[in-house]
Structures are given as structure tokens and as C-alpha cells.
């Protein structure tokens, strides 16, 4: 006979059990519920970033600080797949109704994403969070411009970066040149002067360069970098036209082509090649394979971390002709509220903190990026000496890529033309004309633009 037949469950025992359970739950809830309700009362905001380490840790720290001080909003930060212009994860999640409430987006594509309806107008959520939606009141002008589309704020600028000429001073001394030419205070060299100096560093062995002075397209030597330096404007807004074929850009590309023809693109390519995902210690600048490169301020922190003994200098980008003003360009990231966000006001409060003074102060100090909050520029508490000087000299010389609804496409087209020119697969004129036509075909869908 089964044991269960002996112990019949009668009504009294059920009532006793229920009473005991109820009492237990009551005691437990008296302890737990106040905190549980407090947590529920907070608006739950999901924020996505595509950044990896070391920036990710700092972003988490800022989120933790925000959660601690906010009585109304709790943010959860998640790292997701993506890159500067690749928003596949965001687009598909938003389309599927599972997108985040806040997203860290490359500022340069804000106009493009806003034009496709992916981003929300920030005017109301910022106003509700007590933050001035007039971005120019808080941020550097170029950053405010990039974060807006058709006069509406779609993003809050976060960090920025700008490009300079980083030079190995030991190598410069080795060839008998004056290191004082490669400081932020010095007048900029011309591109031809740089070429002549750097050529002295080239070491060829068995038909290949084992050391090369300066490869123009390495790191941040992009089509935009040379175009801006030679005075290109890239767009005629009134005519709703992209202008990569303008004379200034053609002159820049002529210089690149002449450089490439003189030294041989293939050999220069091989000299600076580093596979994706290589550790920073294998950077060709740190391994003394090149004498100089155009790169951004993040390199200051990289050198300090991985090769602090490196004797290097930073100079303004060279100019086409002596006496001209050096020009460089700035990029950076921003925070947006995607379409379909469930906690818009909570996200607005978070954005105002993260992209406002509190968040940018921590981010600048910990990651050695530059802030976009105008009030933080030159703050001695958040910059080291090198970084402060870098920002002070180069940011005023910086421009930005034009905010266009075809920003990603234009970048790809310019880079394709640039590569075709320096690799010798196309002449300057046809390459730039292709970039113009291919981009304009898409831009025409948006005309007119403000």
C-alpha cells in the first residue's frame, strides 16, 4: 500500500499551512517590499554602447554614478555589436520593438540616422530634464552642428577628438633635423617640407622599406584630412550638392598621387600594414617602423600606457603653402534616443548627465578624450599638460565633416576615390568625379537641405 494513503490531507492542515505561509510572506515582504517598490518606482532606462575597453569601464563608472545620484531613473548599460557607421544592430532592434532607450552614436552620422527616422527629437525630453535644448548654449559649435539635423537637436554631443602630426623625435635627431619644428608652438611645415625631411628616414632592404618616414594615408590620413588642409569644403548646401571634385580637393589628391608615384604605394602599404585587432604594442609608430603619422589625441594615452619612454612630439598638420593656416578636423560621439524608446524622459535625464558636464568631466579625465562641453575646455582638473596643450592649439584649428543625410555614403565614396588615387588604379579627375556622382545620386533624394 502506498505511503500516501496513510496521510490524508485534511482541511485543518491545509488552513494551518496557508496561515503559516501567509505569515512568513508577510514578514519577508515587510523587509523586502519597501526596497522593491523603491526600485520599481525608478524609470528603467536601457542604454547601448559599441565601445570596448578601456572606454567601456569608464562609461560603466559614469552610469553607476548617475544611478547613485538619480532618484527617478535607473540606467542599465549594455555593450552591443556595431561601429562608427554600422548601426545594423540598432536598426533591427528598433524595427523589432526591442531597441534601447539611449544609444551612443558616432556624431558624424547623426544627420543620416535622423533623416531616416531612427532618432527622436530631443527638444522635449531635454526640456523635461531641465537641460537647454539649444545645443550651442552648452557645446562647442561644430559639435552642436553635427548633433542637429534641419535645425532640430537629435543628439547630445559627447567626446571629441582632433588630428595632429605625431613625430618620433629620436629619429628626427638621428637625421640631423631640428626637433623644435615638431611642436605645437611651431609654425606648420608645408607638405613638401615634411616629405623631404621624412624621406631621409626611409630604409630599404631587399626591395622593401623596413622603415619609412611618413605614409600619408596611414591612421588618420584620410581623404577629408587632406581635403580640409588644402581648403576643400566638400558640400554646397545651397545647391544641395556634394563637391569632392572642387579644385582644392583635386590639388590635395594631386599631391597624394605624386607622393605615391615617387615612393611606390605597394611598398609603403607593406611598411605600415598591421592586421585588424593587433595589440597597441604593435603599432608601427611605437615599434619605430615609421617616423611620423597623422593621428588623434587618443594616441597620447596609448603612448603613455604602452611606450612611455618614447621621445615624441606633436605638431600642427602641414599646409599646402608656407604662411597658410593649418587646418585639421574633429570627430567624436554623441548620445541619442532612438525611435520607439519606452522611457523617453528617463533617457533625457540620463543624456543630460552623461553628455553634460558631470559625465564628460569623468570621461575626459579617465580616457584622455576631449570634451565638447565648452565650459570644460582648459579645465586643469581633467587634462594632463600634453593633452591640455593639444586641445588648446588644435581644437581652434579644427573643422568637422559636413553633417549630411548621406554622411556614411560620402565617407565611403571619398575613401574609395582616395585609395584608387594612391594605389594608382584611377587618375585624380575620374576618381573624384565618381565619388561626386555616386554620392549625389543618393543626396538628390533629400534635396533641398538646410
Amino acid at each position, binding site marked *: 500500500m502506498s505511503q500516501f494513503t496513510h496521510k490524508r490531507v485534511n482541511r485543518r492542515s491545509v488552513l494551518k499551512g496557508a496561515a503559516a505561509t501567509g505569515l512568513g510572506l508577510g514578514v519577508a515582504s515587510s523587509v523586502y517590499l519597501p526596497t522593491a517598490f523603491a526600485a520599481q518606482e525608478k524609470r528603467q532606462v536601457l542604454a547601448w554602447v559599441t565601445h570596448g575597453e578601456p572606454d567601456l569601464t569608464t562609461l560603466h563608472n559614469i552610469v553607476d554614478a548617475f544611478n547613485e545620484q538619480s532618484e527617478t531613473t535607473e540606467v542599465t548599460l549594455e555593450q552591443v555589436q556595431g561601429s562608427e557607421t*554600422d548601426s*545594423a544592430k540598432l536598426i533591427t532592434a528598433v524595427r523589432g520593438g526591442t531597441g534601447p532607450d539611449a544609444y551612443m552614436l558616432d556624431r558624424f552620422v547623426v544627420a543620416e540616422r535622423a533623416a*531616416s527616422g531612427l532618432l527622436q527629437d530631443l527638444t522635449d525630453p531635454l526640456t523635461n530634464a531641465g537641460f537647454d535644448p539649444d545645443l550651442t548654449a552648452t557645446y562647442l559649435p561644430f559639435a552642436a552642428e553635427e548633433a542637429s539635423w534641419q535645425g532640430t537637436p537629435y543628439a547630445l554631443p559627447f567626446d571629441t577628438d582632433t588630428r595632429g602630426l605625431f613625430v618620433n623625435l629620436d629619429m628626427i635627431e638621428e637625421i640631423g633635423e631640428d626637433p623644435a619644428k615638431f611642436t605645437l608652438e611651431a609654425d606648420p611645415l608645408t607638405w613638401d617640407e615634411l616629405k623631404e625631411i621624412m624621406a631621409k628616414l626611409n630604409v630599404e632592404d631587399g*626591395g622593401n622599406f623596413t622603415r619609412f618616414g611618413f605614409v600619408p594615408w596611414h591612421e588618420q590620413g584620410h581623404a577629408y584630412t587632406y581635403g580640409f588642409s588644402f581648403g576643400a569644403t566638400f558640400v554646397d548646401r545651397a545647391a544641395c550638392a556634394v563637391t569632392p571634385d572642387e579644385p582644392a580637393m583635386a590639388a590635395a589628391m594631386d599631391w597624394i598621387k605624386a607622393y605615391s608615384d615617387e615612393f611606390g604605394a605597394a611598398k609603403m602599404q607593406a611598411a605600415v600594414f598591421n592586421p585588424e585587432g593587433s595589440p597597441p604594442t604593435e603599432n608601427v609608430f611605437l615599434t619605430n617602423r615609421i617616423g611620423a603619422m597623422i593621428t588623434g589625441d587618443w594616441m597620447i594615452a596609448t603612448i603613455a600606457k604602452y611606450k612611455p619612454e618614447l621621445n615624441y612630439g606633436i605638431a600642427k598638420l602641414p599646409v599646402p603653402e608656407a604662411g597658410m593656416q593649418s587646418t585639421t578636423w574633429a570627430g567624436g560621439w554623441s548620445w541619442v534616443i532612438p525611435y520607439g524608446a519606452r522611457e523617453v524622459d528617463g533617457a533625457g535625464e540620463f543624456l543630460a548627465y552623461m553628455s553634460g558636464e558631470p559625465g564628460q568631466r569623468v570621461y575626459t579625465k579617465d580616457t584622455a578624450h576631449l570634451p565638447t562641453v565648452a565650459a570644460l575646455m582648459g579645465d586643469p582638473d581633467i587634462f594632463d599638460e600634453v593633452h591640455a596643450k593639444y586641445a588648446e592649439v588644435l581644437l581652434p584649428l579644427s573643422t568637422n565633416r559636413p553633417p549630411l*543625410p548621406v554622411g*556614411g*555614403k560620402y565617407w565611403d565614396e571619398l575613401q574609395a576615390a582616395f*585609395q584608387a588615387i594612391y594605389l594608382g588604379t*584611377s587618375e585624380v579627375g575620374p576618381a573624384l568625379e565618381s565619388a561626386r556622382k555616386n554620392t549625389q545620386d543618393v543626396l538628390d533624394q533629400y534635396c533641398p537641405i538646410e
Partner: protein
Amino acid sequence: MSTTQAAFAAPPRRSKWSITRGERKNIFIGLAFISPWIFGFLVFLIYPIIYSFQLSFTRYGGILPPEPIGWANYTRMWNDEVFWIAMRATFTYAALAVPIGVVMAMAIAIAMDQPMREIPLYRTVLFLPSVLPLFATSFVFMVLLNPNTGIVNQILRSIGLNPPNWFGDPNWANFSIVLMAQMGAGQVALIFLAGLRGIPPHLYESAQLDGASWAQRFRNITLPLMTPIILYDLIIGISGGIQVFTQAYIITDGGPARSTTYLVFYLYNNAFKYSMQMGYASALGVVIFLLTLVLAGITFLTSKKWVTYDLT
């Protein structure tokens, strides 16, 4: 009518499509068994194809409602220089990768078919690279083919050759990806191996008795009897070749100088990098689908002339 006439009357004629109750029940049970597959096929394959076809006639960014624009995406594609560059890059890749893949798979299958005691070990070693995800293989090849420190170039230099900048030279980048694709040859080689083992041994014995050399036996027995499997591999290979994407996405970003901007890579950029181009990306998807269909069809139709199903 007499009883004799009735007895010899023909049974009622069944139409071609009529089925008995038992047959109907069997069909119902069969369909019930494969219904999960049917559901998946309709929802995840047929519906997206139809939806892509619809979207290809719109201007769409994924969020705002699609805006009908007729054939504009297709006429734009006809005049889009990058589309034709992508076509050339894709077809160059497929034209190299598919035949080289067949040769590689055949060579590996023959190696796997050798009568040796330790052959299971060799089979495992030959098959192993094809198990690796393409994502991982890409990173391995970036290191192997590094123009400065990669082992391939070091070996080539040591024998006095001037090695190329594999992924950095527009003349070599596409071919480097073709080479990479051969890492997957082990998968096809297994099918080839099954084919090789299905060839009746008495054919080889007879040929050997008649004094046929290895090359003659391969040309007159192995190759003809392997053609059905080669046909299968060609159709699968062409389909895969036209959809090449991952290597360009991870290693080359479509460069240098657009030499690896493949059709699917260009489709992806339009869908997820460029604003409001999902409709154009869908049109590209439709064209890729039709291209694959046509090429597979042509391969299949011409197969009657070169595929041998029986040596007799």
C-alpha cells in the same frame, strides 16, 4: 443490362489527381510531420523573399513607412557604377573560387580515400579547417598573410621571391579571399569522398587488368562517375560564391580601391550604413537572387551534356 455485361463493365476511371481516403490520410500525416519545416520555410524564407521584392519598389529606411517609387531602385542600379564594380568583384571571386574549390575538394577527397591504417587521423586533419567559423579563419589569415611578419611571406622571401601585400594590394586582395575560401573545402570533400567510395571497385580492377594507368583510370572512371556530385558542388558553390560577404566585412572593408566590394557587402552597406537605402538594398537582394537562380539553372541545363549517371 444483363448480368454478364455488368460483370465485365470497366471500373469507374480515376482521374489523375483523385486520391483514396487512405492516401489522403497519409498525406495529412506526412504534412503534419513536416509542418515545423513548412512553417519555418514560409515564415523565414518565402515571406522575406516576397517582402524584399515589395520593398525593392520603395524608398525605405527601416523605420518610417515605405514610400512607393516604382522601378526607380532598378533604374538607379543600372546606372550605379558601384553596383557594376561589385558585380565584377563578385563574379571574379566566384569564377576563381568555385573551380578551385572543386579541384581542392577532389584532391582532399582522394587523399582521404587512401587505403592506410591511419587514414581516420588524416581525414580529421583535412576536415578540421572547414569546421572553423569564417570569422575566426579571417583573423587567422590576416596574421598568416601579413606582408611583414606573416609566415607565408617569410617563406616566400626565404626562397628568393618578392611576396605580395595580399590584402593591401587591389590586384591580390580578391585572390587572397579566394585562397581563404579553400579552408572550407573539407566539407565538400566529405561528399566527394562518399561519391568516390560509391564507385564499384570492379571497374578499377577491370581497367587495371587492361593495363590502364592511374591517370587513365581517373579520367575514364573516377571523373565521369563523380560528375553528379561535381554538379551538386557547382550549384552550391555558385550560390555561395555570389553571396560572399564575411571576409570583405572583417578583413578588407570592401577595399583596397573597391577590389573586394562584393554584391552582398554593398547590399549590407546600403541596408545598415546608408540612410533610407533599405529599398535599394532589397532591389540588390532581388537581383542577387535572380542571378543565382539563372546561373544555377544554366548549370543544371548544361549538365545533361557532361554529367554521367551511368558508365554502361
